[in-house]
């Protein structure tokens, strides 16, 4: 019994020490994104320390969502058309990746942390769909929208002290951002494997006029539609009347 208690106590004492040794200490500022009327994208300053001798991969990913899409194919061997309906599951809304070295040089785990690796977690239905050719298309589409991005060199490694190395990076968050919960993840890699990882949540929320409008549009659709029509009519009439008075010469 005494031996068992001693063992448990020893384990409990060791746990925090182990997490500190393998862990990453970092900050992400600002801790939340406010999307107001004049929001046009923002940047998140990430700073911290990783175990010495490791390379850093930084990711900003949005909550996974399901997408319903059409696959384009040739109808009658001639015309490009929307053909089969596809359901993609577990697709992050946003995925921005930066690293202290090119991901291809960071071994197997480095590649897994990149956009191609991310696509592996995505599910495609129906099961008969050609996942291998469809996933790169999905990544290309998201890249064109500015929602997926992979680069390297943006994470700067700094001074080494006490077995740890400082790092810093500035993540440019796109203007095309929906409200929701996003995650800043930091990975420390050495010899092709992840040595440590840590994550922080960044919440994006609508504030001011966008929040009011979104509430009206999503929770009171009929009123929103009627109001939008009335204001459009009044706007059109007002401009028409201005022209009428100017034209009366």
């Amino acid at each position, binding site marked *: 019994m005494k031996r068992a208690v001693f063992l448990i106590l020893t384990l409990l004492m060791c746990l925090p020490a182990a997490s500190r040794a393998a862990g990453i200490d970092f900050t992400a500022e600002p801790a939340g994104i406010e999307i107001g*009327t004049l929001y*046009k994208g923002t940047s998140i300053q990430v700073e911290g320390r990783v175990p010495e001798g490791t390379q850093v991969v930084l990711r900003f990913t949005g909550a996974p969502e399901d997408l319903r899409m059409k696959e384009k194919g040739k109808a009658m061997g001639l015309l*490009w058309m929307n053909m089969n309906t596809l359901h993609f599951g577990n697709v992050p809304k946003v995925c921005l990746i930066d690293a202290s070295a090119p991901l291809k040089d960071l071994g197997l785990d480095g590649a897994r942390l990149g956009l191609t690796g991310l696509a592996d977690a995505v599910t495609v239905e129906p099961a008969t769909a050609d996942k291998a050719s469809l996933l790169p298309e999905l990544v290309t589409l998201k890249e064109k929208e500015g929602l997926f991005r992979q680069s390297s060199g943006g994470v700067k490694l700094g001074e080494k002290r006490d077995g740890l190395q400082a790092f810093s990076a500035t993540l440019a968050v796109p203007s095309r951002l929906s409200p929701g919960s996003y995650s800043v993840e930091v990975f420390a890699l050495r010899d092709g494997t992840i040595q440590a990882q840590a994550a922080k949540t960044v919440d994006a929320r609508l504030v001011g006029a966008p929040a009011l409008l979104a509430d009206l549009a999503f929770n009171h659709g009929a009123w929103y539609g009627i109001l939008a029509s009335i204001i459009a009519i009044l706007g059109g009439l007002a*401009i*028409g009347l201005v022209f009428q008075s100017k034209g009366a010469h």
Partner: protein
Amino acid sequence: MSIPMELYLPIAGNSVNIAAVFGLGGAVGLLSGIFGVGGGFLMTPLLIMMGIPPTVAAASDSNQIVGASTSGTLAHLRLGNVDVKMGLLLLIGGVLGGTVGVEIIKVLRAMGNADFLINVTYVLMLGLVGGYMFIESLQSMRKAKAPAKNEPEKHVKSSAFARFAASLPWQMEFKRSGVRMSPLLPLFLGGLVGVLSAIMGVGGGFIMVPVMVYLLRMPMHVVVGTSLFQILFTCINVTVMQSISNHTVDFVLALILLVGSSLGAQVGAKIGKKLHGDQLKILLASLVLVVMFKILYELIARPDVLLAYVGGH
């Protein structure tokens, strides 16, 4: 410059440059004012290029057309170019036809590959309408040049269609358009356009304008005004329905576009008035043909990405 030019649109989920959206609205409004078409065929793809999701681009455009067509209708009303009676008949027919069209599209989708049929119908319709209008107005312009007369009397051929139209009951006068016909004819033709536009997912201005010119024999200037009058009501319906079922109307985006397009529509109406009916027709025909070729190109050329988002409806 210290004036903020970027504005975040909560429904579109992106920020846009106010000046760019305003300019886009102005350019499309100009065309709308000249030809009496909604301009959705131009506006929607350009908005998508600016980073607006496709479903939001189409629905918000309908919202702005409400304002632009109000302004355009007012301008044409002052010029005496709106045949309200004819417009209402076409509108009633259009609403009924649209309902039928939505049911047809459901059946087509259930049968599979409806998109193929829709696209081919679109290209054929635009090609036929654009080609016919182009050739007809070109011939008419040449004829007008030959005799020294200012306004050559338009000679109505006694075609089978004209004889059929004359045989319909309840013949009545449409003073603004200067024609006499049964109300059944605009009701039926409005319905037909409604069916086609619901199937093709477009406003229908492109088909409605030639129908009014060639089948209802209305003068081109009255056609433009009456078409705008009708589009106004169609787009109110779309705005409200999209707001309720899909939440895709971005009102702020629509408002910026509207200010630009309303100004453009006013200028357009004035330019249109200065142009001869045949010149208007040939310009519209060219526009229709350009759109037709654009769609045809998209059908033939390999797309950059082999995936497309599915609209919420």
